[in-house]
């Protein structure tokens, strides 16, 4: 009974929207750069996903708190400053506690700033909603991003190195597909992934031509 009632609350709808209906990567195709560049190893994908989730939640909440005080003319620059502050925090945290992951991600941690999802949520959602819902929305979008990233990373890591989180899963006779660790592998896996998601949800892209 509880579950049925949960279905109609605003929080649940926002959560479902971010995780499946409007999944930032599969449906809206946002934030692809980092999604492809760091998804060749599962551990990198998890670190990146959690970093992005944190940045979305924190920056959306901050934008939401100050939404009445930010003049709309300079709002973009203000969002940029807020977002980059949190990204610097994530970057320093990774450098201090996970130096190997920080090295593997390299400049891509800094590029969370230009990840369109973060900016998109601040602009489309946080400016109109109270803090409570922006946190749910940030979490939903961040997790929607993370699980796609991890799925892509699992496929790529298994094919490219025969491992998941550095544990051997493929038999010794497995020949590594080196191409999957490089850029083309990411493009192919994500392209096919989008195809599958669209077929499953029957959410096709309307072509205007």
């Amino acid at each position, binding site marked *: 009974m509880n579950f049925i009632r949960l279905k109609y609350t605003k929080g649940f709808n926002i959560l479902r929207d971010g995780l499946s209906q409007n999944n930032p990567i599969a449906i809206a195709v946002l934030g692809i750069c980092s999604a492809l560049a760091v998804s060749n190893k599962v551990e990198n994908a998890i670190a990146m996903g959690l970093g992005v989730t944190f940045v979305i939640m924190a920056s959306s909440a901050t934008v939401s708190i100050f939404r009445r005080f930010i003049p709309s003319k300079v709002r973009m620059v203000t969002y940029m400053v807020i977002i980059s502050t949190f990204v610097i925090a994530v970057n320093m945290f990774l450098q201090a506690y996970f130096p190997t992951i920080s090295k593997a991600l390299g400049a891509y941690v800094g*590029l969370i700033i*230009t990840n369109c999802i973060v900016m998109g949520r601040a602009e489309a959602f946080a400016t109109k909603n109270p803090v409570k819902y922006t946190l749910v929305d940030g979490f939903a979008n961040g997790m929607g991003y993370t699980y796609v990233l991890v799925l892509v990373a699992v496929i790529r890591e298994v094919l490219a190195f025969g491992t998941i989180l550095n544990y051997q899963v493929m038999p010794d006779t497995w020949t590594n597909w080196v191409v999957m660790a*490089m*850029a083309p592998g990411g*493009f*192919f896996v994500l*392209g096919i992934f989008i195809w*599958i998601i669209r077929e499953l949800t029957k959410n096709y892209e309307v*072509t205007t031509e």
Partner: protein
Amino acid sequence: MGHLVEIFISSILNNNIALTFILGMCPLIAISTTVKNAKGMGLAVIFVVTITAIINYPIYSLLKATGTTQLNLLVFIITIAATVQFLEMFLEKFIPKMYNAFGIFLPLITVNCVVLAVSLFFVNREYTFAETVSFSFGSAVGWFVAIVLLAGIREKMAKKSDVPKGLAGKGIAFIILGILSLAFIGFTGLASIQ
């Protein structure tokens, strides 16, 4: 001089910023439906990337001198946003022809990761000023090449080919990019970026 040319060639071909570092994907996918728009966006990127890298280099030296390099992200992004804003106003006032050519693409560039990435890469690779100029211009030209190639293929495909419904639009763009990227791997070892 030869070293600078090498960095330039390398950042267009075997270290192409779009096809090997996978950067600037959002606009690459979104604006590559026609060759005309792709060219406009590509030119705007060449312009902005080169100018912001030239401005960011002395600013980074200043940060290094004062020991506040951890703030580089914040400072770079503000520089980029300000430069784009300034360029927009400057072009509108003094070179209206150029402004009309890529006016609508300029504001979009602030969130194009290529711009920020080029600034972060010159920091990571410890380039000198001349190397930074050569690298940023080369990377931007590389991005231009990638978006025009992709747009050319997509434009032809929209007329001729029968793409599965679920793959149409963005899905097939990724497959094309994958094949393009495979082709660019063929340039590996041509020139060194360091």
